[in-house]
C-alpha cells in the first residue's frame, strides 16, 4: 500500500501539530484550499405538510410560497422533496411521535418508541471523527440554539444516551470562544494556562485508576481520554496562533441578562449566533457547527412580525399561538394553514440570514465561507402522503442543502417518493456531509449504510 504524505504524518502523530503548515503546503500545491466545514440546521416539528420546499422538475423548479424567504439563496441550494428518515422507527402514524422523531432526526438511530438515541447526532459524529483523524481545532464542534431544552431528550446527542443542549446565550457563547481569539501574534496566555492545568488533570486522572474496579476504570478512562483530547485541542490552537480579533460583544441589542427564551429575542439571536458561527469558521476555531431553531416539539412562539393564530386546546393539552399545539390539530383549517405557513416562513427567513452571513464572510484564504461550508437544513417531522391528519410521520421531510463548493451541483430539486423503501433516506445526506469534510472512508451513518448521495455531484 502506498502511503501518502498525510498518512505518514498521521501515523507519526505529527499531522495535528503540522496541520496549519500542511494547509499552506496544500495551498501551494493546488491553489488555496479552505478547510471543509459543515453546519447543521434543525427545527422542531416542521411544516407538517406535503408541500415544499419546492415544486417542479430537477432543474426547472420554484420555491414554494412557505419557503420564499430563501429565494435569494436558490442558486446556492439543493432542495429535496420526499425524504424519509431511516432509523426513526415510528411508522406511518403518530405512534411514537416526537420522542422518536426528535431523537432520531439527527442521529438516524433511536430505540423504537422511546426518547433514547443510540448514537451521536451528525454534528457530534463529524466533530468526533475529525478529531480522531487528527484534525484538531480549539472547539470540536459548536451547538447553538434558540431553545435550551429543559429535559434530557432532543435531537442533539454527544453519544448514545448522552443528550446535549444548545447554548442559547450569545454572551456565554462568545465568552467560550474569546480565549482562542488574539491578534497580537503571541501565544494566548489563557491557552498556555489551560494546557498546563489540563496536563496536571490528566496526570491526576491516570494516577487514580490503579485501585479501581473494572467499572470504575472504564468510567475514569473515559474521563482521562477526554482530558487528553481537550489538551491536544488547546495545544493545537497555541501552535496555530489565532489571527482573529474578538468582538467587544455579541451582535445584539439584547443584554446579557435577557430572557433568551422569549419570542421577541429570536431574530436578534439568529443574527448574533450567525456572526459567532461565521467568526468560528473564519478563524478555524471549529469545522463543525449546529444551530437549533427550536427544541423537539417546539413549544414556543416566534416574533410578532409573524402573527400566529391561536390553536384550540389539542390532545396534547397545548393551545395558543405556538407551533406544537398546531401539530396536534388534526384536520384542515385556514388558521392551521396560516400558522404552519408563518412558522415555516420564519424558519426559512432565519436560515436565509445565516446563509447571508456565510456568503459575505471571507475565511483566511479570502474565500466566502459558504463556498467551503455544506449546510444541511432539516426538521423533526414529515407527513403521510395524502393525509393531513396523520401529522407525525417520518416521511416527506423537507430538506435543503446549501453551499459546499463546486463538488455539489446546485440550483436543483430532488423529487423523491418519501413513503416507500426506494425513497431518499436522510442518512445518505448525512454520509455526504461526512464525506464533504474529508472523511472519505466513512460509508454509513446511523441505522443504515448505503453511502453518500452521488446525485449531488451532478
Amino acid at each position, binding site marked *: 500500500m502506498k502511503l501518502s504524505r498525510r498518512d505518514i504524518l498521521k501515523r507519526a502523530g505529527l499531522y495535528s501539530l503540522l496541520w496549519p503548515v500542511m494547509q499552506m503546503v496544500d495551498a501551494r500545491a493546488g491553489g488555496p484550499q479552505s478547510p471543509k466545514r459543515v453546519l447543521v440546521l434543525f427545527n422542531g416539528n416542521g411544516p407538517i405538510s406535503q408541500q415544499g420546499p419546492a415544486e417542479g422538475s430537477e432543474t426547472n423548479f420554484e420555491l414554494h410560497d412557505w419557503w420564499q424567504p430563501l429565494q435569494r439563496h436558490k442558486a446556492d441550494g439543493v432542495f429535496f422533496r420526499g425524504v424519509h428518515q431511516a432509523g426513526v422507527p415510528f411508522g406511518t402514524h403518530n405512534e411514537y411521535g416526537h420522542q422518536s422523531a426528535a431523537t432520531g432526526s439527527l442521529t438516524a438511530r433511536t430505540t423504537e418508541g422511546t426518547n433514547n438515541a443510540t448514537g451521536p447526532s451528525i454534528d457530534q459524529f463529524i466533530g468526533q471523527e475529525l478529531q480522531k483523524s487528527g484534525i484538531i481545532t480549539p472547539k470540536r464542534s459548536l451547538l447553538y440554539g434558540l431553545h435550551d431544552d429543559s*429535559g434530557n431528550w432532543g435531537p442533539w446527542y454527544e453519544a448514545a444516551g448522552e443528550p446535549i*443542549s444548545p447554548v442559547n446565550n450569545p454572551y456565554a457563547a462568545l465568552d467560550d470562544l474569546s480565549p482562542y481569539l488574539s491578534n497580537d501574534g503571541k501565544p494566548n496566555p489563557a491557552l498556555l494556562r489551560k494546557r498546563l492545568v489540563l496536563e496536571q488533570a490528566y496526570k491526576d486522572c491516570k494516577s487514580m485508576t490503579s485501585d479501581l474496579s473494572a467499572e470504575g476504570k472504564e468510567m475514569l478512562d473515559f474521563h482521562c481520554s477526554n482530558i487528553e483530547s481537550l489538551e491536544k485541542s488547546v495545544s493545537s490552537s497555541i501552535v496555530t496562533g489565532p489571527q482573529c480579533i474578538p468582538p467587544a460583544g455579541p451582535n445584539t441589542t439584547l443584554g446579557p441578562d435577557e430572557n433568551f427564551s422569549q419570542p421577541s429575542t429570536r431574530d436578534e439571536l439568529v443574527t448574533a449566533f450567525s456572526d459567532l458561527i461565521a467568526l468560528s469558521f473564519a478563524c478555524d476555531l471549529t469545522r463543525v457547527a449546529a444551530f437549533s431553531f427550536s427544541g423537539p416539539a417546539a413549544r414556543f412562539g416566534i416574533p410578532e412580525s409573524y402573527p400566529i393564530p391561536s390553536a384550540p386546546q389539542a390532545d396534547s*393539552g397545548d393551545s395558543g399561538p405556538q407551533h406544537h399545539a398546531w401539530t396536534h390539530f388534526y384536520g384542515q383549517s385556514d388558521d392551521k394553514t396560516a400558522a404552519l405557513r408563518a412558522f415555516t416562513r420564519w424558519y426559512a427567513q432565519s436560515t436565509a440570514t445565516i446563509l447571508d452571513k456565510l456568503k459575505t464572510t471571507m475565511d483566511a484564504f479570502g474565500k466566502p465561507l459558504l463556498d467551503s461550508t455544506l449546510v444541511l437544513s432539516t426538521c423533526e417531522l414529515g407527513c403521510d402522503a395524502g393525509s393531513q391528519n396523520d401529522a407525525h410521520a417520518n416521511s416527506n421531510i423537507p430538506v435543503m442543502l446549501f453551499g459546499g463548493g463546486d463538488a455539489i451541483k446546485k440550483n436543483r430539486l430532488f423529487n423523491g417518493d418519501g413513503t416507500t423503501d426506494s425513497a431518499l433516506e436522510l442518512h445518505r445526506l448525512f454520509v455526504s456531509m461526512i464525506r464533504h469534510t474529508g472523511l472519505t472512508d466513512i460509508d454509513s451513518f446511523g441505522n443504515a449504510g448505503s453511502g453518500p448521495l452521488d446525485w449531488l455531484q451532478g
Partner: protein
Amino acid sequence: MSRLRPWMIASLFAGSLGCIGEIGSPLPGDEPEPPGSTAGDFTTSPGLRRLTRVEYKNTIKSLLAIDVDTDTLGKELLIKGHSQISGAQKTGYDDVDRYYELGAEIAAAAAPAVLSETGCSDSPCLETFADGFLTLAFRREPSVSVKAEYMALFAAPDAGETLDEQLETFLAAVLSSPHFLYRKEIGVPIADSTFRELDGYEVAARMSYLVWQTTPDQELLAAAKNGSLDLPNGRAEQLERMLESDLARQGARAFVFDWLGLFDNHMQDKAPLVLEGTSAELPANATQSLELTIDDVLFGAPGGGQLAELLRTDGLYANAEIADLLLLDGAPTDGFERLTVDTKHRRGVLTHPLVIAAHSKEGGASPFPLGKFIYENMLCETIPPPPPSIPKVEEPTEGQTLREELEAITSADGCSGCHSRISPPGFAFLPFDPIGRYLPTDKAGRPWDTKGELIVPDQAETAPFDGVSELSVVLADSQVVTHCAAKRLFRWSYGRFEQDGADDEAVAALQAVADSSETAAFELIRAVVSDPKFSRVLVK
C-alpha cells in the same frame, strides 16, 4: 464574572402520555435510560462519585466562600428519577471543558482574596495555604508527590507572570482535577465479601455529602486521620455534631429536592401568558420559599420533623410574590414568612409552585407528567415506556371537559394499564397552572373534577381522594410512601440502587425506622450512618 459572588475567604409518561402517541414535552422526568451496552442495574458502585452540580456549588462555597452558578456544567443523567446514581455519570469532552472554564472563573475570583487574607507576596509563603487547600479540596491529605506537583505549578513558565496569576493557575488546576471532581469510595478488599471497606477519609466524605451536601470540614478530616471514623462511636459522635450544624439544612434540602424531582428550576420555562405579572426573581423566590418550608418542617421543632409532614403541612413560606401566586393574604412587605394555606385546595410541598412547575409543560395542564411523578417519586413505582403500538387519537367531542377528553383517549386497551394509575393523581392537579396558580374553574367556567382513587402498589384497596389536598394526606399517611422515601434515602446515601440479597437487611432496617409515626428525618440519617455497611462499598 456575574455568575460569581465572592465573599471573604473563610474556609432531571408514561408521562409522555405514552399511550396517546406524543404528548410528552421535555420534562425533567423524561430522562433517557442508558443504552444497550452501557445499561445496567446500577446496584454496584464504580468507586467514584462525581460531584453533582449541587454538591459542586456547595463545595466551592465551603472551600472558597464563593457563590457559583453551576448551570454551565452538564446535567446529571437521571436514572429512574435519581440524580445520584454514580455509575451513570460519565465525563465527556465538553464536560471536561466546562469544568475547566468554571474552575478558571472561580480561581480568578478567589485568587485576590486569598492573597489578601494570607498577606503573601511570594509562592513559598503560599505553601501553608496550598497544603491546607489541597487537603480540603481532595478530601484527604495529598501525597508528597501530589503536593510537590501542585507546588511546582507556581513556578511553571505558563502559569503566569504575577503571583496572582500563578495562584489562579494553581486553583484552576485543583478544581479541574479528578481528585476534586470525584468522591473516591474505593476501599480495600474484605475477605469472602463482595463489599470493600472504606478508609476514614472515604467515610468522612460519604458522611459529609450525605448530611451536609458539601465537602468534609477540617474536624471531620481530622477524625478520619486519627481513625475515629473507623469506629461506630466515632462516626456517631461526628454525626451529632454535623446534625447540629446549619449545614444539615443544606443536606436535607438537597435530599428533599431530589425526592421531589427538582433538578433544575423550571419556573420560567413557561409560556409568556403563564408568566404574565411575574418577576425575574420568581425562580429564586420559589426556591427560597420551598427551602424555608423544608427547614420549618424538618428543623422547626426540637428533635426535628418527619418527611411525611412535608406532604401534610398547611404552612408554606412566602414573600409578596409567592403569596400572590398562592392567593394568600398577609404577605410580609419584606422577606419570607410562614403563611397558612387554604387546605381545601392546597396542602404540602406537592402543591408548591416549584414542584408543580418542575413537572408541568410550558402551557396548559400536565396531568400525566404530574401523575407519573407521584407514582415514581412517592410510590417508587416504575411507569413503563409507551407500548409499541399506540392507538390512534380520536377527535375530541365538543363540550367535553379536558378530563373527559383525556379519559376517553386513554381508556383504550394498552393505555388503561398505566393510566388507571397515573391519571387519577394527575387529575388532582388540574386546577393548577404551570407555575402553581390555583384556578377555580376551567376556561369554560366549569368546576374541576379532581376526584380519584389512588391505586397503591401491593395493597388491595384503593385510596379515595378529592383534590390534591386530600391526595397529599393520603400519601402522607401511606406506609408505601414512607418506605419509598427510605429506599430513596438508601440510594441517595450510596449512589446506587439496592441489590437483592446484599442490601435487603439495610433497606429493611431503614424502612422499619421510617415506619414509626414518631420518627423524625434525623433518625433516618442516624440509621443510615449507624448501619455497619455504611463504611463499605459494594463493587462489581
